[in-house]
């Protein structure tokens, strides 16, 4: 498997919300990275995981699959998944896949944090 061309930075903003900054691509190869990031972001008190897509360069169908996998895990932990920083194109994709129904999408970080 090729190396994942992605960097994920986890910021635990407070006891209940964490942000994962995604820099690069979201494809099949980033599964390990994403799940590790989620593990890091999720503490016992964490209620909201916020994905920052501002640095997203490329996301394919496998990447969407990964987001769905993450969503399932987050739901199991009784947490919520939020997102911001999506380009118009990927926002469109989130809409047609109906991911936007399950992941609340915000334009900017502060909006997302305020909602979290």
């Amino acid at each position, binding site marked *: 498997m090729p190396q994942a061309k992605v960097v994920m930075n986890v910021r635990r903003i407070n006891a209940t919300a964490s942000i994962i900054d995604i820099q690069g691509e979201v*494809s099949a190869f980033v599964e390990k990275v994403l799940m590790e990031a989620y593990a890091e972001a999720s503490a016992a008190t964490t209620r909201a995981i916020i994905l920052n897509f501002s640095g997203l360069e490329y996301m394919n*169908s496998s990447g*969407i699959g990964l987001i769905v*996998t993450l969503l399932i895990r987050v739901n199991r932990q009784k947490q919520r998944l939020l997102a911001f920083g999506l380009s*118009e194109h990927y926002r469109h994709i989130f809409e047609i*896949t109906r991911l936007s129904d399950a992941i609340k999408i915000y334009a900017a970080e502060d909006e997302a944090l305020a909602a979290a």
Partner: protein
Amino acid sequence: MKSEEKTGKRKKYHQRDTLKPWSRLQVRMAISYVAVSVIIALLLELLLVVIFFTLIVNLPYVNQSVVNAANYSAQVYALEASVQGGGTALNPRTTFRPGQLYSLSAPAGFPSGNGSNNNSNPSLAQVVQFALLIAPNGQVLVSSDPSRYPVGANVAQLLPGQAQLIQNALAGKAGNTTNMIGHSTSAVQPIWSKNKQPIGAVYIQTPPQQFNPSIFSTIPPLLFTALFWIIVISPIGALFGLLTTRGLVRRLHHLVQATAQFARGDYTQRVKISKRDEIGQLESQFNQMAEQLVESIAQQQALTEQHARLEERARIEQELRTAQYIQRSLLPKEVPSLPGWQLVPIYRPAREVGGDFYDFHPLEDGRLGIVIGDATDKGVSAALLMATACTMLRTATRESVSPGEVLARVNELLAATIPSGMFVTCFYAMLDPTDGRLCYANAGHDLPYLRHKEGVSELYATGMPLGMLPGTSYEEKETMMAHGDSLLLYSDGLVEAHNAKRDMFGFPYLMALIKEHVTGKDLIDFLLGKLAAFTGPDWEQEDDVTLVTLQRAESYGMSEIAAQFDQTDGDNSWQTLDEWTVPSQPGNERMVMERVAETVKTLNLSSRQLEQIKTAVAEATMNAMEHGNHYQADVPVAIQALVSKTALAIRIRDQGGRKTIPAAVEPDLDAKLAELQTPRGWGLFLIKNMVDDMNVSSDETHHTIELIVYLGGDSHADEKS
């Protein structure tokens, strides 16, 4: 308990059904015939006795001695009268006095009336009731009973029945007569004169004769004859009874025997219908009843058998399903993708699971373990054995990187656990996909065939089947697979398949087929086609058929790919903007995406359209590399960008050939979140939503997807969303 009761009952039937030589019925009938005969004989005898006595009492009875005595008495009286009359005329005074019959003196030697009875003849007093002396003129001259027959009366008037007789006597003729009713005898005698002239007549009449009691002496003989008839008739009656009932009894006997046989379970018993009488009806009804019984028994039996068959079938089906489940659950769900290699397994289970298996073990050093095997026996036991072996092989692979050692370890474990007589054949190969090095060992499995440029060779290595003998070592060998080489691993279900003529598919034919096979095409499809042609359409698969092919891709050149497009694209209205190939390596879709974006720059598409085209192209390229080319790095994906006046077309072509696109399940986020669908599976959905049109075409070797975006409008894709 029930069966004992039944046999007890049967014994009873058995005792009853055998008839003795003299059946009760026959004896009874004979007795009744005898009784009837005796009664008839007695009645006849009684009738005879009645008739006899009636006749004796009523029929005329003439006692000759009385007649003789009467005649004699008349003669005596006539002679006396003649003498007293002096031989000339009758003397009315000297003959009978009234009430004194014996007034005439009896002649000498004639027994006198007054007590002298010296002989057996009856005396006159006994013989004569009354006497009349009759004058020639027919008048009573003297009467011994003047009160009834007075003197001077005309005798013809007094005794009209005897008038003629008296007339004859007066004419000189003696005579007598007996009154049949009164049983009295009358006798007349003429009275002669000296000169022999009749001068009168004497009439006497005897008293009525008494019934003769000697008749009763005839009764004993009559009784004797009755006894005689009884003795004679009884055996005749008995014989008659026996003879007439013989046929009847015989027919009943047949019926009884048939019924008894039937009751004992011989349902073929039927009786011949002898006559159209009541017994005949009984026979006919017995036959009908037997037929109906047989029919209902048969129906019952058929039902029971059907039920048993269904149960057995259900049990077998359940067992088959269990075995199939075990087997399927252990066979790998996914085939590892090796760039530059095509690894295709196929497993066709027989109806009864045969114990075949294959497995892939990705090793940490990048190599791939490929296993094919066959457990002995069939059904659940084979499936369990196969499962055990499969698991042991997986475990052993983690501990060793040598095929021979893996087999040796598994052999030790299996030999210690499985019953003798059971074993597993297995071929284990480890492939290094980077250079085609193949390291292998064999545990008694059919030798795989390696097809290379020089021909076909067997991969031979010695070793006993697994689980047979502890302490077995396995020879390990190595070979190289060059570009275009192919390897076939298979189970005996293929080579031991029989056709309708009972010919076996066999190793030589298989080897010839592999030689014949054209590189680049799917070897499995080719072999299965040949197998189907060999066995014919009605083949019932005897054993599992398992095939695993490993093909190393040919190295393609760019020119070849370009030529492929040129051959198929004859549409002049399309202008080619760009065409190129990329190796089927993960991540290369981004290269294609960027190059397409660069190529279509001149078309002045909106940024949104461009983004959508990029996503669609990336998805299509990923599919081509993964599903079409199995990420074989040296099997390229060819891309062509074309433009017409109205549309942009991106064609993406892989080497997947006739393979159909996996049936796309419409992705549903809710189902995915509920884990009813895999989280993946968005590719085709994305493509369809990103472009205006999508066309798919296939030929023998290629599979092409064409993405169409109409120019001059950015509305289409939006509408879809």
